[in-house]
């Protein structure tokens, strides 16, 4: 298996700076420092690297949106990783931290930021302290601080811990939280590249997105495009969980199929059960019917929608045939009700209402009308919330009722 991101699986002690330096560490950053900043951005643009945080927005394009009439600029690494089913960024930060930091440094250089922050979910308390050490080592090695590698470019990287709120993964809520406020999303536009942290132009990128950058600079856009498909180039880490024999992170080229991921790598379904449904993007996903068509669908941004889902952050949750989906959507609603920030009405009230309905339905007290009402309330939330969390909360609910009616006909 080829590793571009999870290189520590091949190389022992990659999280030690000496090892990392021996393994071409910081070569991408050094190369970038000799390039024009716009060329760095263009290389990433051409590589077609899409955001790994969920929305899949092209990273280079985002960097090019930075408002150059408003300074300073900031880069913020999104290490909030709170989507149920996602656990890839943590592995990167723990085991291949320097590649991530290198990517962050390249991004900062490209957009002219002299300060970059890593926003980690509060639960990653130990990871944050570990990264603090790594940042210090990197500074000592001359890759951070003033006049990096003899250039006139200066950069400092800081960690910033959240404190338990899924919504802080949403980029504007994350920025609010960084500013010392309640982590509630802002109205967009303005988007962060025009007004972000402290109202200054800011790039927010996911950890995995940034970790992909050094490879792109090292091998060029063409080198990167050797993996993946035309519209979804590169490799991607799939966090595989749920009813599979071997849950865990798998780095595969985009374009691999669900079947490969779940059965080849994940070792199939345990206890002789069969696969029933797939949530391809964590708790926010639609419930995809795990038929042959779905299993043979390529894991790309463009293909997963064909079977009624989204690639999102590629946290694939496998559901076997012993699970009744009324139980599952009660779990997702429990999550979204708990995590709704409360700022906007449809999400605050809708998540509470849906939670009450899924509880009733799961407990067996629900009627047919309750199921219809649940679907109606979910539909009513859609398209009206301030941020995507409200939207997310309805996905599993609506698609489970639509695609697995038998689970609700009790």
């Amino acid at each position: 298996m080829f590793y571009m991101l999870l290189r520590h699986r091949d190389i022992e002690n990659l999280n030690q700076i000496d090892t990392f330096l021996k393994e071409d560490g910081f070569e991408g950053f050094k190369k970038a420092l000799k390039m024009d900043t716009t060329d760095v951005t263009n290389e990433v643009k051409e590589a077609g690297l899409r955001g790994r945080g969920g929305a899949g927005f092209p990273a280079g394009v985002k960097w090019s949106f930075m408002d150059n009439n408003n300074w300073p600029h900031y880069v913020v690494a999104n290490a909030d990783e709170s989507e149920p089913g996602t656990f890839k960024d943590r592995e990167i930060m723990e085991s291949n931290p320097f590649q991530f930091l290198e990517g962050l440094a390249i991004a900062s250089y490209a957009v002219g930021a002299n300060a970059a922050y890593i926003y980690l979910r509060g639960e990653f308390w130990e990871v944050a302290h570990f990264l603090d050490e790594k940042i210090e080592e990197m500074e000592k090695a001359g890759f951070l601080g003033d006049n990096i590698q003899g250039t006139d470019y200066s950069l400092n990287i800081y960690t910033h811990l959240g404190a338990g709120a899924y919504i802080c993964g949403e980029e504007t809520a994350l920025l609010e939280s960084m500013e010392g406020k309640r982590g509630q999303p802002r109205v967009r536009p303005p988007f962060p590249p025009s007004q972000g942290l402290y109202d200054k132009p800011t790039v927010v990128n996911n950890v995995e997105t940034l970790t992909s950058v050094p490879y792109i600079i090292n091998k060029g856009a063409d080198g990167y495009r050797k993996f993946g498909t035309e519209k979804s180039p590169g490799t991607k880490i799939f966090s595989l969980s749920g009813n599979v024999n071997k849950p865990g992170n798998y780095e595969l080229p985009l374009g691999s199929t669900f079947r490969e991921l779940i059965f080849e790598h994940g070792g199939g379904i345990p206890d002789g059960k069969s696969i029933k449904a797939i949530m391809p993007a964590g708790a926010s996903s639609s419930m995809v019917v795990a038929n042959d068509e779905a299993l043979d669908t390529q894991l790309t941004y463009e293909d997963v929608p064909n079977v009624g889902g989204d690639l999102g952050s590629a946290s694939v949750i496998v559901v076997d045939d012993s699970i009744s989906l009324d139980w599952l959507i009660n779990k997702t609603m429990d999550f979204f009700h708990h995590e709704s920030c409360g700022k906007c009405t449809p999400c605050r009230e809708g998540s509470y209402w849906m939670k009450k309905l899924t509880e009733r339905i799961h407990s067996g007290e629900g009627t047919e009308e309750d199921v219809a009402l649940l679907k109606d309330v979910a539909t009513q939330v859609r398209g009206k919330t301030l941020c995507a969390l409200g939207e997310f909360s309805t996905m599993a609910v609506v698609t489970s009722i639509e695609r697995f009616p038998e689970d609700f006909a009790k």
Partner: protein
Amino acid sequence: MSLAEKYPQEIEKILAKYPPEHKRSAVMALLYMAMREEGYITKADKADIANMLDMTTTEISAIIGFYTLYHDEKAGQYRLQVCTDIGCALRGADQYLAELSEKLNVKPGETTADGLVTLEEVKCLAACDKAPMFQVQSGKGIKYHEEMTVDATLELIEELRKDAKEAK
């Protein structure tokens, strides 16, 4: 003693991360600092932090209330926070929590009689492949414990109990 008096250097280091006109950004880190002492944020801490950052105590409380990892009420010395979200639940976390709860003789949300452990149920901790799992939150910080069994958990609690006794 106030936090400002107790940890002047560390506070300075935290504040240095942010532009001086945005020192409010330091509130998250300072709230963690406050929890070091008693495991929860006291009224005096709130006033202290508000004072340092030119905020009101109401603003501080509003932040504490928003985030689940800040506590302004006393609980057990260790908060044992078991993930029962989808990923973990599909791998038996609910049963694990039920068993643990029975062995410890506390329901989620309750604290053991000796005040050592508060058992809590939490949302996804980004360790879905390592269920059952939990994190232990205390004044000292947060630590993950993955691929756990009830027995291993009880052993861990014994160790925590020993540590607590030694600390006294």
